[in-house]
């Protein structure tokens, strides 16, 4: 575990986030003192139902239990070209109870929000745990956590998207679509806005009682250019990242203004030169690199994966067993630091308290190039006690427990995992200028990685050929293949704090049954030497 001092030394992301927040507010005319809505207040009836659930679980024999009562709202608007294709509002509310009996978990969930309904559900969770005991080997033991009684929290939204009329959202999208369609051969645009609002209430038998509200916003767009003779078509997407913010974030994206450029890029891709296969130096923009970080650092450093808990679906990890890699495996150059946190303002996984009732801390997954820590929950933190003891640090959860709905059992999910900026203040353009023969990649594209996170292949959205430190033209059909440790050890240049940007996924899947997590990844641009590039173009 890292302390504050480490972060200050490495050029702290927290300070960066504060600066970014100030810049963000300035950019769309929110005065620094523009008040955000206050954190939520838990209503008495919800609190009482949660206490009923905990009591019923204890009476039925649970040694520990927690309950989540949540209301999960979604709003989405979808368009194509100059028309609306879908307007949907969803509202789901219910209670999930998790009970630990004799070291075995049981879970049950219901939408029947009555005293009897919730008590029956708690009893069912205990009954499931008792029945399942027959398959237990070692008992579950939870790492200690302070109790947080009657606390509340909200994320960084200022404008609740549910207060914005539908026609205003649609109008903004249709304007952006029209801007993009001015470009030659751009015939189709698909765009939309997705909003989530989670009102989450949590209580456990340790005594924590927590209420939180989270809003997440995203405006995905895709532009398609079609050759006049139908011999080719090219897409440009991945233009505007999702964020843990409100409608003010959508406004700040300037979709209509930027769509002109995005449409032009789709059009230019039709004329782009097919890439020659070979080895190139790659300059990867943060809008692209976030996904490579997600797949090749985010997922393999999940402790449940490393210990085989996801073997049947998402897979395991090359970072295993922990005792052979923690403090021993060199992930990359000494300037490489990767932070796990749930604290970056505006990031998707940012939260006050996790679904174990833990207040998450910031921790370094990669420290000075060496593999340093995994993502953990209360159940998992004890598995690494030997490691924390060896460093003289307390054994505690990093606060990565998350269930995507009241009806989903919580388990370990990814916090924000970010590549920290370098000490030297240099930009994306500086990295290009320093490169003799390479490809600069903007935007995430096709992505595929094996079940232990070794071998990956990534595409992108826009590919620029670099010669003699200058961009000389656009390429197409580009994908790079990599082996994770080799790839990160090939990173030789990294941008400074001012070049740091957040990207992220609105729909990251894991678990059985599959659950969705939204997570952000910050990074500066970075350069990677001598990477294998393939050409993906074929004839049907």
């Amino acid at each position, binding site marked *: 575990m890292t302390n504050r001092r480490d972060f200050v030394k490495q050029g702290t992301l927290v300070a960066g986030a504060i600066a970014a927040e100030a810049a963000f507010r300035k950019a769309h005319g929110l005065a620094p003192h523009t008040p955000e809505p206050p954190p939520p207040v838990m209503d008495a009836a919800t609190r009482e139902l949660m206490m009923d659930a905990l009591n019923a679980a204890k009476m039925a024999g649970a040694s520990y239990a927690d309950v989540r009562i949540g209301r999960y709202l979604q709003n989405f608007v979808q368009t194509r070209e100059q*028309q*609306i*294709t879908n*307007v*949907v*509002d*969803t*509202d789901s509310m*219910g209670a999930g109870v998790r009970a630990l009996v004799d070291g075995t978990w049981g*879970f*049950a*969930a*219901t*939408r*029947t929000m009555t005293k009897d309904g919730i008590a029956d*559900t708690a009893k*069912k*969770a205990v*009954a*499931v*745990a*008792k*029945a*399942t005991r*027959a*398959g237990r*080997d070692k008992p579950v033991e939870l790492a200690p956590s302070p109790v947080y009684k009657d606390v509340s929290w909200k994320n960084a939204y200022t404008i609740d998207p549910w207060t914005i*009329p*539908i*026609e205003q959202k649609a109008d903004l999208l249709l304007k952006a679509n029209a801007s993009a369609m001015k470009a030659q051969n751009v*015939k*189709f645009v698909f765009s939309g806005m997705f909003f989530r609002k989670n009102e989450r209430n949590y209580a456990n038998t340790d005594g924590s009682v927590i209420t939180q509200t989270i809003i997440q916003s995203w405006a995905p767009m895709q532009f*398609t250019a*079609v050759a006049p*003779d*139908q011999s080719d*078509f090219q897409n440009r997407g991945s233009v505007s990242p999702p964020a843990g913010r409100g409608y003010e974030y959508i406004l700040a994206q300037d979709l209509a203004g930027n769509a002109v450029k995005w449409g032009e890029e789709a059009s230019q891709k039709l004329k782009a030169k097919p890439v020659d296969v070979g080895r190139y130096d790659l300059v990867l923009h943060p809008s692209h690199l976030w996904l490579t970080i997600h797949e090749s650092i985010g997922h393999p450093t999940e402790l449940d994966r490393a210990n*085989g*808990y*996801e*073997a*049947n679906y998402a*897979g395991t990890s090359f970072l295993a067993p922990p005792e052979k890699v923690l403090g021993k495996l060199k992930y990359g150059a000494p300037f490489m630091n990767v932070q796990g946190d749930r604290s970056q303002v505006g990031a998707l996984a940012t939260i006050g308290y996790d679904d174990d009732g833990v207040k998450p801390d910031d921790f370094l997954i990669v420290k000075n190039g060496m593999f340093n820590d995994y993502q953990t929950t209360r159940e998992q933190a004890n598995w690494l006690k030997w490691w924390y003891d060896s460093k003289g640090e307390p054994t505690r959860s990093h606060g990565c427990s998350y269930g995507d709905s009241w009806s989903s059992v919580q388990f370990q999910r990814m916090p924000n995992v970010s590549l920290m900026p370098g000490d030297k203040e240099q930009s994306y353009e500086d990295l290009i200028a320093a490169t003799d023969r390479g490809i600069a990649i903007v935007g995430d594209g*096709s992505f*595929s990685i*094996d*079940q*232990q*996170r*070794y*071998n990956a*292949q990534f*595409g992108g959205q826009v590919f620029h050929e670099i010669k003699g430190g200058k961009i000389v033209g656009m390429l197409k*059909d580009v994908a790079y*293949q990599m082996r994770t440790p080799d790839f990160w050890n090939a990173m030789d240049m990294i941008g400074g704090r001012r070049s740091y940007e957040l990207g992220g996924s609105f729909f990251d899947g894991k678990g059985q*049954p599959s659950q969705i997590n939204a997570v952000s990844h910050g990074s500066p641009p970075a350069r990677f030497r001598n990477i294998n590039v*393939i050409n*993906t173009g*074929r004839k*049907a």
Partner: protein
Amino acid sequence: MRAPRRLIPIVSADGGIISRADSQAMIQRVVKMSAAESISVNVSSNETNNLRFAANQVSTAGSVSDANVAVTSAFGPKRATVVTNNLTDEALRATVKQSETLAKLAPDDPEAMPNLGPQNIRTVTAEFASTAGLSADQLVRAGLTALEPARKAGDLVAAGYLVAQRASNALGNSKGLFAYHSNSNVNYTVTVRTTDGTGSGWAGAEHPDWRQLDVAGVSARAIDKARLSRNPVAIEPGKYTVILEPQAVGDLVQLIGFYGDARSSDEGRSPFTKQGGGNKLGEKIIDPRITITADPFDPMVLAQPWDFDGLPLGKQTFIEKGVLKELYYSRFWAKKQGKQPTGAPTSFIMSGGTASVEDMIRSTPRGILVTRLWYLREVDPRTILYTGLTRDGTFLIENGKISRAVKNFRFNDSPLFMLNNLEAMGRPVRLAGTEAGGAVIVPPIKVKDFNFTSLSDAV
């Protein structure tokens, strides 16, 4: 105090899934609340019991029930949908009102189609008491068919997922349409790894009827594969003759379904776009031995026999003897192009042959046997070119025999290219591991020149 060990039946606190009669009554009630020009109501419910295990022990088990009502109100070309899981009359009234408010504010959708009237929909019986009555104890006992032998062996680690589900889905509207479908389903998948980290084997099975699921057989297959896949050697990537087990075939071939939309073909942004204009209907696109259909009534399928619009679904033939016969026409696109709407299929069935996997191996001087594929992602939508990797059982075949385990490969290939390189096909089976969901029935196949582009160290 401990409860006595006994059968603990999992009974839904919410009274199980919503019956046909209750669904119809609820739809009629909601329709009466409407002040819109037209209203469409979808009532769905589900009840799920699951068991997860990993690292040779249970990890989580759960029991979840939920129900949703989706209301779509329309005023001419304006419409909006609001969904709630609160089924009280008060909440439903608020939901109807909210959908009307949103619809009135929404810009026109010039492609909006009027609701369908009553349809002639036949029933598919897909609910089995054997599945509905499954207890948590039965689920654990099933899981023990993998856990116990793995623990006993000492050099194996098992991880798996067993889920039993019941669900209902109903659609009705102010024009008198009513459609209902209920089903049960059990899905079991298991991955067994060797403790030395060099071997991994996967197996799975799925069926609406619990009695048809050979749980112990699935566990045993995964264990055998784990042992056989130990200590893989690296061989050069390149083009190989490959025998794909049904799961691997399905992973790649079912992707064709995602590209079957007539509109995107006609608009020039699909693999079935014809250069110069129009689409490839009537053209030969894959090997003439292959036919691809959908049929909710097929006994191996038992899927919902109507689509999201309420259009009845019968047997549909998309590719017949290698020729593209049908693309998906939405009601709007069909009207615009002067065609019949096809309905959106709820199953995927590929025809097969008579060769067994063993026959295919025997006839192969040198090739690769693939258990399943993983992390498939689109690389080029113009050709359905995908990349992905082999996983959990990849073997070298030499002189008609499996000679040894090999390291996993990354491939870059298209199901269209692959099905033009066909050598042999076996008996179709229902898959357990379908990421897209729905019933997928495919055979094992043997193809030549499958394109492996790199090696992976992943086990």
